[in-house]
């Protein structure tokens, strides 16, 4: 990298994007980017620092800016608890919610509570900010067109009953063998998993039918654990019951 832009407005960002002749990279917290850059995995010479754009650090009752750090997430409880499971405390002081959703690592655990909360996502696209349901854009990973930029997340912070469990193989600071989040929703139940397959998996169910839920997800075998082991972990979590009690 030999050039860093720091736009303060979306007009400035538009101007930068229109003048670009080579590939560029959006940068904010840096926790994933800097490690990849040191290892020579990032070739873009021009980086755009997005955290000074309006709204990126916003924390209002219904909106969280994309550059808010994971340690700053406090409500609702399920969002805060899932955030606290990611990386370590110091990293969470500069790992952003947008970075976790958009990063290259496949786990993207913060997506699970956002989907359960039926969150909408703001995206800077073609010079304007559009707002769409997250579930319309998230399929294995967040589907963004070239130049598009996530600016924030919008959801109702009302607390909902949930069960959360993060299984790892070495201790609390590790990638998940299986992160499990089950949430009571107005229509039934949301179940989301990270680490269970090669991508985050999630689905909504009308009833708490353990067999139906178990068969809705595909477990992967890798050096962290076998598919059978993961499936057994999920079965154990599901058999603890539906998340019907308020937290």
């Amino acid at each position: 990298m030999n050039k860093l832009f720091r736009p303060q407005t979306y007009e400035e960002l538009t101007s930068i994007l229109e003048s670009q002749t080579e590939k560029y990279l959006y940068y904010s917290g840096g926790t994933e980017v800097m490690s990849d850059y040191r290892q020579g995995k990032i070739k873009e010479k021009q980086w755009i620092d997005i955290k000074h754009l309006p709204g990126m650090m916003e924390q209002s009752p219904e909106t969280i800016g994309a550059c808010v750090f994971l340690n700053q997430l406090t409500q609702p409880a399920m969002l805060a608890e899932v955030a606290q499971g990611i990386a370590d405390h110091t990293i969470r002081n500069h790992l952003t919610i947008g970075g976790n959703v958009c990063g290259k690592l496949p786990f993207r655990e913060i997506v699970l509570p956002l989907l359960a909360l039926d969150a909408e996502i703001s995206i800077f696209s073609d010079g304007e900010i559009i707002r769409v349901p997250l579930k319309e854009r998230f399929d294995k990973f967040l589907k963004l067109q070239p130049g598009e930029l996530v600016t924030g997340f919008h959801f109702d912070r009302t607390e909902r009953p949930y069960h959360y469990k993060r299984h790892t193989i070495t201790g609390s600071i590790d990638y998940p063998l299986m992160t499990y989040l089950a949430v009571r929703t107005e229509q039934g139940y949301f179940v989301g998993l990270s680490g269970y397959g090669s991508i985050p998996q999630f689905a909504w169910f009308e009833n708490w039918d353990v067999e139906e839920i178990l068969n809705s997800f595909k477990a992967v075998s890798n050096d962290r654990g076998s598919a059978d082991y993961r499936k057994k972990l999920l079965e154990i979590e599901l058999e603890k019951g539906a998340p019907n009690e308020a937290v």
Partner: protein
Amino acid sequence: MKQYEDHIQMEFSLNGERVTTRFDVDETLLHVVRNRIGLKGQKGGCLNGDCGACTMLIDGVPVKSCLMLAIDAEGKEVTTIEGLKDTPVQKAFVAKQGFQCGYCTSGFVMNTHALLQAHPDADEETIQNWLSANLCRCTGYEGIEEAVKMAQKNL
């Protein structure tokens, strides 16, 4: 709009003093503090955000300086181990021998200092949560834990 290219000169606050230094736009804060300014207290370990040896405080908040561009320190107060003088945390680490080879120590001290500033009455869970961000490859965790508890009492 601000934009930075190749080499930049920046002034920022380091351990309470204004410093001006010149560095490449892609340099990490760790690299600038150690190799441009010459304060070697914070160590480069994994350079991957895992070990915590490089932990510095930015406006009092611990961050892994190996993962932070130096340019992001603009307008911030940066604190390294050289900025802590005879704090209860340092004294406790000496008293309880909260170190073995010492390579990780400055990172642990910085994080513990920030923890006790933010949560003077931190419970066991909070201490574990914060300090699990630092690794001691000598596995001297018992001494470190005793040092943290002693520092907490002596605040």
